[in-house]
């Protein structure tokens, strides 16, 4: 059959709409055409896929190949379509059975040798795939975070050959399960007892943590504002599962998510995030500006000249907010932020 359809997902903010990768082979001069609003990284998949297929021992068909990424009006970015495109070409040229592709969704970047590279936003994609009843095939390092969304089966693969062996029934890919680790009591956060004096500020931090209130610390330089604020994550109660997965998905979009910081409580499959590690929660400044307000846990800014007043108002409403230097005050919207918001 000269036509194959492979299911994958794009990313649009936190949403991960379904993308069908359609590959059609026809006679004519050998060429590869990619359509469906592909970004530069997606267009470059042509060369990666060609090299990966040849190095994995497959034949790259000498035909006129048309790859369509549907829906046509959704912009597609990043290398996560490499694996679906490669599988589509293999299925359309009859090297793997097209029927085997139906129950799966695929995402992964290919290296020239045919190995799979990690992708960004795996958790958001798997969360969105929840209701479809398909299983997900992902690169090994992305699968671990994606397995936290327990309603979808996630298979982990490290090479293109492994995926093809799974689809032809020669071997089965390992299913990735959420790892169970012992709950950490947050010992690696700085301790509040290290701050001397400042009884009122400590009490205010306790109230902020208990009721999820926003907080502003003001005072002369060197009196301990940043020191106090950095101890706030260590006081927070555990997040709920929904809030945990949401903030994990945001971190996953920014490529910052570290699954080892999540704690899975075995009874009832409840996932509790680690609300108390600076790397996972506090470094909100590296998350794209338009997503920052989504993080429910705790965000801590010092010197954030890119914030607009609008962004800060949302923060004050949604976050426990610790402002520690005057540089963080809202001024005029910076050109970087306004250009990113106008793109949206």
């Amino acid at each position, binding site marked *: 059959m000269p036509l194959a359809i492979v299911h994958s997902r794009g990313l649009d903010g936190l949403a991960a709409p379904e993308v069908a990768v359609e590959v059609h082979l026809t006679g004519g001069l050998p060429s590869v055409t990619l359509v469906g609003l592909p970004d530069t990284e997606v267009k470059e998949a042509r060369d990666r896929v060609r090299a990966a297929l040849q190095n994995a021992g497959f034949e790259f068909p000498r035909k006129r190949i048309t790859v369509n990424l549907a829906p046509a009006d959704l912009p597609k970015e990043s290398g996560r379509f490499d694996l679906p495109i490669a599988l589509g070409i293999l299925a359309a040229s009859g090297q793997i059975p097209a029927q085997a592709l139906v129950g799966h969704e695929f995402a992964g970047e290919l290296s020239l040798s045919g190995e799979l590279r990690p992708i960004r936003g795996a958790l958001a994609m798997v969360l969105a795939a929840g209701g479809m009843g398909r299983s997900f095939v992902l690169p090994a390092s992305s699968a671990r975070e994606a397995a936290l969304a327990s309603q979808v089966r996630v298979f982990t693969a490290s090479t293109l050959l492994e995926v093809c062996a799974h689809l032809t029934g020669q071997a089965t890919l390992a299913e990735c399960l959420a790892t169970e680790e012992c709950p950490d009591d947050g010992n690696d956060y700085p301790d509040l007892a290290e701050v001397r004096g400042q009884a009122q500020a400590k009490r*205010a931090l306790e109230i902020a943590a208990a009721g999820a209130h926003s907080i502003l610390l003001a005072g002369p330089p060197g009196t301990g504002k940043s020191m106090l604020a950095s101890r706030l994550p260590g006081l927070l109660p555990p997040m709920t599962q929904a809030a945990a997965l949401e903030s994990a998905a945001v971190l996953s979009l920014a490529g910052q998510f570290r699954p080892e910081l999540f704690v899975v409580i075995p009874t009832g499959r409840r996932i509790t995030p680690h609300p108390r590690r600076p790397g996972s929660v506090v470094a909100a400044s590296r998350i794209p500006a338009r997503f920052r307000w989504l993080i429910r846990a705790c965000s801590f800014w010092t010197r954030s000249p890119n914030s607009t007043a609008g962004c800060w108002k949302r923060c004050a409403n949604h976050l426990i907010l610790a402002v520690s230097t005057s540089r963080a005050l809202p001024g005029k919207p910076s050109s970087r932020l306004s250009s990113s918001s106008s793109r949206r």
Partner: protein
Amino acid sequence: MNPCPCGYYGDSRGRCRCTPDQVLRYRGRLSGPLLDRIDLQIEVPAVPAEVLQHAPDGEASAVVRARVAQARQRQLQRQGKANARLSTCEIDQYCQPEASAAALLKHAISRFELSARAFHRLLKVARTIADISASDAIEAQHVAEAVQYRRFAKD
């Protein structure tokens, strides 16, 4: 944030060299509407040398965290969400102060000229303080403490 460009406004040794105009302009960068949305506004003063030389005195994070978790548990059992996320009608339902507390609140609103939004936020903070002390009712002491955390904007 700092109270003025040099940071020493209000220092007892008079180290601040900023003009009143500079201070006003500096404070103006944080707009009133924004400040009004922040529940807890705390001044962090300089720590005296004697305190710094003593051994650390406060509670450890683990002790505070246990109290915080209990208070949050009370909130979730009562209303299914944290106090800061209560809507206006939920505030009417869950954050009714006692008679003495209501009188104090009325006085505080006129004394500090609090906005309607500030009033609601103050009630939510008072509710949290009552939760930390495991009290079902919002008493006058809880409201009094909550009012303390709104003073910065009025200075």
